[in-house]
């Protein structure tokens, strides 16, 4: 416990943490600006243009609507005959509607949880970098060797270093989440769209934020373990980028069945309280091959248990390596 305290104080004093916090604040500001500009009320010119477009479409519908409807229904019937399925071309929804031209502006309460979830990837990357550099820098400067001449118990040292990275991630992530929420609220409020905040929306927001916080702590531990294992910040970050590119995109594209086991799926399931992914399933019939997308659900439990299991394996591996490693 004493060592954990020392390590936490060390990490809090590192410039890397400050740099990460500043980068996080910059990102939050950019996200907030983006949200602000997308929730701005339409200007009079935009309103006029939208009105004109709507009127033009109404005129066209009045002129050709019947014919278009007939065409549509005919095509629908033909398709039904062909496939035997009860296909719906949505012909009865072809009449132009006003709201198509005057986009609805989402209110704060409707989008806040989603924005947090989307931004979480950025926070996790920041925490990973902080964790990786916390241990890798110490190894490459040789300071770890000196440290071990004061505390030679390798596993105690390792445990304190990994845990401290997780602990330090908490204020970093929490601070940035609060800042982001505040920014979002202000952006919406300025644009008169601060509503939508019923109890359920708040529950959603709070739940998402807490889950991101917990995942942040886990990412800190993972980063620190990777730093110990690979000894160089660049190597560990390279591995993460390589993993994201190769496994999470290319391999996953080739073998869609892997999707529930991808980090991004599990992270999404963790942050969003369950997520979905799609596979294409094809059946061969007499008429040929017909494929359709199938939606699958990945639960919060699945995602979180999988990520925890991976973390445990990584930490055990790091312990096994570090316990016996020659520190030169």
């Amino acid at each position, binding site marked *: 416990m*004493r060592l954990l305290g*020392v390590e936490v104080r060390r990490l809090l004093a590192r410039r890397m943490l400050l740099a990460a916090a500043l980068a996080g604040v910059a990102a939050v500001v950019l996200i907030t600006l983006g949200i602000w500009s997308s929730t701005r009320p339409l200007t009079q010119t935009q309103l006029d243009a939208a009105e004109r477009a709507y009127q033009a479409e109404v005129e066209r519908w009045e002129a050709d609507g019947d014919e278009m409807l007939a065409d549509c229904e005919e095509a629908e019937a033909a398709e039904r005959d062909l496939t035997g399925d009860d296909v719906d071309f949505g012909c009865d929804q072809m009449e132009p509607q006003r709201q198509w031209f005057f986009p609805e502006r989402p209110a704060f309460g409707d989008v806040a949880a989603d924005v947090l979830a989307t931004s979480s990837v950025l926070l996790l990357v920041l925490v990973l970098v902080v964790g990786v550099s916390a241990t890798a820098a110490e190894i490459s400067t040789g300071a770890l*060797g*000196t440290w071990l001449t004061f*505390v030679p118990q390798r596993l105690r040292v390792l445990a304190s270093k990994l845990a401290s990275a997780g602990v330090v991630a908490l204020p970093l992530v929490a601070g940035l989440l609060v800042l982001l929420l505040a920014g979002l609220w202000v952006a919406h409020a300025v644009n008169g769209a601060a509503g939508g905040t019923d109890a359920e929306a708040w529950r959603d927001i709070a739940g998402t934020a807490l889950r991101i916080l917990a995942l942040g702590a886990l990412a800190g531990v993972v980063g620190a373990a990777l730093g110990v294992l690979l000894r160089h910040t660049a190597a560990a970050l390279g591995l993460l980028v390589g993993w994201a590119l190769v496994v999470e995109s290319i391999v996953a594209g080739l073998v869609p069945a892997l999707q529930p086991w991808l980090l991004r799926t599990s992270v999404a399931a963790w942050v969003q309280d369950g997520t979905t992914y799609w596979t294409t399933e094809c059946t061969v019939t007499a008429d040929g091959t017909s494929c359709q997308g199938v939606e699958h659900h990945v639960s919060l439990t699945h995602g979180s248990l999988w990520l925890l299991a991976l973390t445990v394996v990584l930490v055990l591996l790091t312990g096994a390596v570090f316990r*016996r490693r*020659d*520190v*030169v």
Partner: protein
Amino acid sequence: MPADVAVETRALRKTYSSLKGRQVAVVGLDLDVPTGGVHGFLGPNGSGKTTTIRMLLGLIRPDSGSMSLFGHEVPKRLPEVIGRVGAIVESPKLFPAFSGRRNLVLLADAIGAPRSRVDEVLDETGLTDRAGDRYSSYSLGMKQRLAIAATLLKSPDLLIFDEPTNGLDPAGIHEIRRTMRRLADEGRTVLVSSHILAEVEQVADTVSIIGRGRLLASGTVADVIGDRTAAVRVGVAEPERAAAALHAAGLQVRPDGAHLLVEGEPAAARITYLLAQQGLWVHELTPVRAGLESVFLELTRADTLGAPDGASPSAPDGASPQPHAPAPPAAPSPPGPDDGTTPSRRTRGGAR
């Protein structure tokens, strides 16, 4: 195990394995460092000093052999004894971006030493004024001092300094020497490694000399030097003819610049007599005290030239019968061309 032994190693062996292959660094080393005083741990670059020190500190694990610090088996019981041992391995390495004080505070907290100790050791090493500056802004001498301050946080009974004067200016070297002497006078044991003999000769009470991972000689400085014969430096007009004459008379002669060096405790009178017989007139005749330097050179050179020396019974090592590259020359002065005076390999007590 006797309590008056600070460091003891037996049949210590370490092989580094890396992508480039295996490198035997320490081969059956038996090292004994008595408590109290300064003990010089001497050997040319690459002879295994740092490797040995790292093993003693639990930083790397030996392949085989045993070690103890104050009778505690290492690395198994290192946690019990580490509080009595302060060490600086190779160069001082602390957190570069933190101030000197913060570095010390973190270390003090890690071992549960009171914060007041930080101010004490800063004061003791004369760093109080610069304690708030970043460690990376320190000169090498100050880094060295801060690292010593760090080891003093523990009030150690044994201090291990690995080539502490590397890269320091003469004033810094002097200061380190004084510090080591002071620490030893306070009753602590100081183990200092070096490849520069002159440096340690002045401050060490006892020495161990290693070469290629093996112990070559050890004992008090007087012992190790005392076994060695002194030499006489002869200035003479025709050194070649003179050398031949002296050699014929059974003396060991080798050129030393424009002079000759006659080894083997020769009587000066005999030299003048022998040369006078040849009509050679001596214009200079200086007795040369055998310094640790020459002993060291002799030992390590003999070792480099050494015939296959089956020193490590544990290591038939068929894969790499010659694991070491020849050790680099240990000192700037190159030995002269070998004129038949191949130094014989001597070990402790081997005086003729």
